[in-house]
């Protein structure tokens, strides 16, 4: 076990150069018909941050899982410090100093922070938490986490959990740190904090791998960039190349590598429609609701949504956006106020009444409430409509119809899956998201509420999703888009509201969007001038 929190073993003289820390050679991994990794090479140097990029389903997670011992490659070899390494289980990887922060969280919610951190370490039969606790205290301080080691993890915010994940890995003394989409769930401030930590680790000679869908993050942070496409490594941008070319050139090069010669859907056809807003579809009057812990999360919020518009909700995570979405979807009871759809009052009428009235909802918790992970893609595709014709008649399910419907969605949204009968959890993160969105849109909702619909999506797919939302509005429906990505909100919204501490503190019309002011409002709830909206 490491004696000092952030000292990797063995200490390197100056951290950089020398021989590669890890060499993955000719790695191949097949899942049934899908060749997730096809003869991939990856070299990691000490003291370097290496970004691995690629579209959804490109095989990034698979490659990391091979290195972390979660998957056994069908072919290929791994060298550690030049020597062939045997990595058959996660234990092997951990013992050789390879630590992983997985795409989906790997903390046990009911255990305390300290229990999570010592879980799996080998220090005798009796748990000696005293020693570990002293060490953990310094690390918590180091990472600016003001929580106690005894706090149960389920009480922590996502950003805090993320840092605990990293602490957990560093606690064992890590020489190679793998991070699979660590920033997707973080707020910008938290992302900055994470990057500071990663840069510090780089100084200390750790080899860091980061997977991300945000090109700017990769370009800001990394020394070397590897791009995967359909399981193959299609290019590496080494430090010299990156230093020699300006950001825009690098960006274009990467996008070209990621998507090959295929036409890019990038472009600003997502820009808002200019048609004058139509009649009101959704009315919220002075709605209030409590959060999971009983404290008020949405406070006295009023809002009208009109035909033909995309209404964006900006805000730092945890300011009541999620709860607002759930109230509209009928998943959360409002404590006061009223909700009307198309003029019909439906306050607290429950999910099915509200969904019949024409509201669609895409949650940000895709594996949790959004889907039944153990079931097939097809079953998940009809999860909400399974009781209706043509999918079921009387008691019988019409398997054919279900499958045909699912296949159409798969085709239309380019969901990468071996078949419609594949178990949902076997899809890559981004492809699960695409399917859930496809499912909601197929129900042709009058009002679609989306919470972070592009989270975890590659840039092309994200553009496609935004475009689809735009079209949804242009077809005479309304969209409420909740997001923590200000850029996409600015691109696609006709009106933009800012939520702060459960209140809608300002609404901007397109044309008066001002990043500075909006940022101010997100962080403080006030305009810089002190004039509250």
């Amino acid at each position, binding site marked *: 076990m490491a004696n000092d929190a952030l000292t990797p073993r063995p200490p390197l003289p100056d951290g950089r150069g020398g021989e590669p820390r890890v060499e993955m050679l000719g790695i191949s991994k097949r899942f049934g018909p899908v060749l997730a990794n096809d003869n991939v090479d990856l070299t990691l140097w000490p003291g370097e941050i290496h970004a691995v990029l690629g579209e959804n389903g490109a095989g990034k997670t698979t490659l990391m*899982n091979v290195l972390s011992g979660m998957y056994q490659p069908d072919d290929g070899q791994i060298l550690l410090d030049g020597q062939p390494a045997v990595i058959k289980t996660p234990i092997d990887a951990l013992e050789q100093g390879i630590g992983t922060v*997985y795409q989906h969280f790997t903390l*046990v919610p009911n255990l305390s922070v300290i229990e999570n951190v010592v879980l799996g370490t080998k220090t005798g*039969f009796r748990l000696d938490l005293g020693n570990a606790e002293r060490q953990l205290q310094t690390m918590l301080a180091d990472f600016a986490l003001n929580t106690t080691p005894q706090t149960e993890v389920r009480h922590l915010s996502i950003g805090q959990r993320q840092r605990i994940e990293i602490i957990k890995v560093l606690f064992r003394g890590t020489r190679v740190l793998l991070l699979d989409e660590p920033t997707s769930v973080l707020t910008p401030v938290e992302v900055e904090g994470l990057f500071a930590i990663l840069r510090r680790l780089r100084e200390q000679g750790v080899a860091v791998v980061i997977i991300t869908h945000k090109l700017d993050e990769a370009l800001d942070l990394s020394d070397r960039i590897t791009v995967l496409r359909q399981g193959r490594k299609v290019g590496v941008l080494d430090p010299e190349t990156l230093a020699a070319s300006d950001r825009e050139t690098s960006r274009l090069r990467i996008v070209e590598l990621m998507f090959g010669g295929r036409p890019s859907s990038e472009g600003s056809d997502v820009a808002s429609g200019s048609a004058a807003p139509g009649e009101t579809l959704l009315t919220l009057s002075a709605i209030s609701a409590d959060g999971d812990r009983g404290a008020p999360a949405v406070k006295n919020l009023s809002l009208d949504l009109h035909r033909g518009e995309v209404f964006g909700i900006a805000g730092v995570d945890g300011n009541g956006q999620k709860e607002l979405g759930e109230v509209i979807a009928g998943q959360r009871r409002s404590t006061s106020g009223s909700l009307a759809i198309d003029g019909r009052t439906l306050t607290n009428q429950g999910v099915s009444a509200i969904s019949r009235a024409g509201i669609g909802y895409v949650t940000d918790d895709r594996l949790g409430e959004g889907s039944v992970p153990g079931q097939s893609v097809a079953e998940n595709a009809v999860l909400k409509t399974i009781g209706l014709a043509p999918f079921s008649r009387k008691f019988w399910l019409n398997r054919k119809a279900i499958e045909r419907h699912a296949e159409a969605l798969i085709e239309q949204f380019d969901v990468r899956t071996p078949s419609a009968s594949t178990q949902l959890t076997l899809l890559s993160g981004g492809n699960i998201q695409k399917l859930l969105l496809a499912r909601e849109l197929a129900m042709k909702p009058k009002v679609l509420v989306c919470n972070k619909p592009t989270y975890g999506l590659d840039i092309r797919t994200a553009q496609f999703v935004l475009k689809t939302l735009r079209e949804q509005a242009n077809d005479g429906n309304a969209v409420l888009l909740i997001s923590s990505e200000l850029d996409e909100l600015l691109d696609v919204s006709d009106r933009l509201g800012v939520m702060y501490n459960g209140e809608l503190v300002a609404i901007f019309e397109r044309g008066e969007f001002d990043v500075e002011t909006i940022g101010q409002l997100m962080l403080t709830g006030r305009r810089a001038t002190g004039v509250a909206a």
Partner: protein
Amino acid sequence: MTLNGIDVTDFLTAMLATGLLRAVPLAIASLGDVFAQKAGLLNLGIEGMMLSGCFFGFHAAYKTESVVLGMLGGIAGGLAMALLFGFLTIHLRVDQVLVGLAITIFAAGLTGYLFRDWYGGQNVAANVRARSIEIPLLSDIPIIGPAIFHRQIIFYICWALVPVFAWLLYRTRFGLNVRAVGESPFAADAAGVNVIRTRYLAIGLAGVMAGFAGAFLAVADLRIFTIGMTVGQGFIALAITMLGGWNPWRIAAGAILFGMLNALGDSLQIVGVGIRTEFIGMLPYIGIMLALVVLAGKTQLPASLGVPYARGQR
């Protein structure tokens, strides 16, 4: 003071003594099952493991005339069933409910068959006597003296296991692994915990304890075997485990409460209050039902209870 001609002190002493005696096998089996459930194994085979413990414990005691070997025989009987459960559910990933029920039915059939074959189905007593000790001074206290401080050695051993198991669950690496594995096996695996081994150890411990509980019944307490003699006590233990929130202390309390209700029923019959015996016999089960109703929703099942694990199948 007397009640219907029975001395009240004697009545209370008998009730307390019986209650605690009835509580022992429940507490023991539950303590072990905490580990199975916390590790994500819904052990409906516990009834069969206990019955197997009764028979093989009795058989060993009958042949060797030794209490210790009898208890060991029971433990072996419970463990064998547990390993079968483990192999089917952990290794082959067959549905746990199915396997648990199958094990319970299998154990009933097997012990019934062997009992008829080896003993001709005749009730014979094993020639064993579990030794008792009388704790000086304390055993002179009225009522609780004889009921608590003048008991078989094995009785004390059983209750001493409660703090041992609490320690094992909360203060050891094994306990931590068990708690993690039943909650999120993927997280535990990623942290370097051997999920499969932890689950085997947990079900093994549950089997040992269920077998021990069965042997207590057949060897230390009754000294005979009868077909199907556990009559659902394994399932009661399972319920007590859940109702006790997987906390060894609360489980011990739950077992005592259930044992007491049981003893109260018996005592009331002896005293002869004008209530039908069938109704009195139902008391403890009504108690469990009530507890289930009151506590339902308050307990938080281990998130991966009943879910098999295989690495790489997200």
